[in-house]
């Protein structure tokens, strides 16, 4: 793949890059299964985890990934920082950078924040989620999980269902799956779709029952109640009835179709509790694969000299 300095959006990657990262992830899954799951690939490197917004799984996932590659991590939570004393974002970033870090994983509630932050530091930036915009490592973990079960994603049908409007996961996955050749369908009520989908590589339907029998992936989004400022849906119960993956709908899925969810789940809202525990629900695998995929991303950004690596290797 091409040398990569930052990973801010799935738009930064082409199909070859994604394939390379997923192949590398395959190797790191093997490392993760070892008795001592640690390799020296990022020894001497420091990864700062800079989170301006709540996160459990993404933060822990990156910390675990960095640890398995022998990197040091430096945690920074807004709740415990000088941001509460009025320090600006720029000052905060410059302060962290001054400590000598190689990579910064940034989560921020403002869409586009990582693009600004990149100008204030020499470190490689990984977007760990910016507002409603992008969450590329989540998409890569999802692509990896889907590829492991379905093989080549070219021509597969992927429904992304629910709160599309507020979801960076929906945006990153729509780009990611379509770059892999899959057909992406947003399934949502009008009130949970963005104002414009112009230029998006997706089709749209307001009726989950219309597509449920023909899809290979049913990707349910978390209903982001904390981002709703108006009444986007009449009631959660009605939403569940219309757009949730109920047991009755899950029965109509093809046998080999995957049920996916980025977590944390609102059981009984976007997904029925019993459905999340079915064998074709790969939700916990998505979490486990998230660690290996983040190892691949960190290694490509700060561990590999891709500009110097040649594909062919000579004999010994």
């Amino acid at each position: 793949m091409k040398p990569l300095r930052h990973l801010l959006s799935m738009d930064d990657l082409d199909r070859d890059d994604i394939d390379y990262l997923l192949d590398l992830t395959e190797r790191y899954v093997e490392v993760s299964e070892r008795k001592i799951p640690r390799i020296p690939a990022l020894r001497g490197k420091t990864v700062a985890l800079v989170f301006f917004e709540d996160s459990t799984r993404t933060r822990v996932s990156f910390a675990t990934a960095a640890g398995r590659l022998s990197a040091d991590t430096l945690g920074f939570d807004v709740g415990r920082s000088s941001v509460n004393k009025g320090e600006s974002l720029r000052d905060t970033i410059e302060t962290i950078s001054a400590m000598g870090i190689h990579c910064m994983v940034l989560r921020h509630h403002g869409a586009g924040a990582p693009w600004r932050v990149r100008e204030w530091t020499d470190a490689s930036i990984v977007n760990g989620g910016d507002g409603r915009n992008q969450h590329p490592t989540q998409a890569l973990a999802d692509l990896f999980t889907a590829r492991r079960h379905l093989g080549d994603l070219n021509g597969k049908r992927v429904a992304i269902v629910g709160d599309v409007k507020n979801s960076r996961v929906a945006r990153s996955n729509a780009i990611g799956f379509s770059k892999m050749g899959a057909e992406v369908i947003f399934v949502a009520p009008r009130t949970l779709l963005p104002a414009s989908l112009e230029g998006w590589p997706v089709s749209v339907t307001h009726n989950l029952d219309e597509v449920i029998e023909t899809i290979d992936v049913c990707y349910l989004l978390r209903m982001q109640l904390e981002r709703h400022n108006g009444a986007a849906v009449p009631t959660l119960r009605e939403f569940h009835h219309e757009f949730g993956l109920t047991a009755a709908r899950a029965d109509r899925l093809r046998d080999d179709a995957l049920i996916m969810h980025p977590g944390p789940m609102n059981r009984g809202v976007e997904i029925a509790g019993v459905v999340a525990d079915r064998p074709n629900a790969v939700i916990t695998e998505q979490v486990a694969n998230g660690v290996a995929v983040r190892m691949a991303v960190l290694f490509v950004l700060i561990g590999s000299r891709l500009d110097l690596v040649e594909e062919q290797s000579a004999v010994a």
Partner: protein
Amino acid sequence: MAGPHSSGVFQATAQVMSASDVTRAIRRMAHEILERNSGCADIVIVGLQTGGVGLAERLVDDINEIEGAEVPLGSLDATMHRDDFDLRPITSEAATTIPVDPTGKIVVLVDDVLYTGRTVRAALDAIHSYGRPKAIQLAVMVDRGHRELPIRPDFVGKNLPTRRAEMVDVNIGGVDLGEIS
């Protein structure tokens, strides 16, 4: 800059072992491994990716035939433990499979050519992430010298003095000495 992994065409200048020489050397090393370890109990044979894997298979076949046993066979890609891993291409075909927990076992690492010793050092690190072997031994088809680390082989097919500019190629037809051009 022509690095150690640059591509080029291997030009053989001399054959130093024929195919049957290699077959006999493998047979002899199988006997030596059994002699050293008083049989094959607790032995695990692990071929280093990529050149050692085929040799490890042949070595295990011979050991199993001599002893009437089933010795576990694995493969190990130590690339991620190398000190120059950042310059190495990642070959996804080069799989690692360690079939048994190596803790308490005698692991015999197998490679085609022993040169600087850096691959073996990386392999020593890598194997320990799967467990703590009772002992690790090293079998190589060709020891070409020029070690950069304090590592020596336990079982050798052929000691072959070389110049650094030369290359050694172990292939199906035997062992060739040559140069990259």
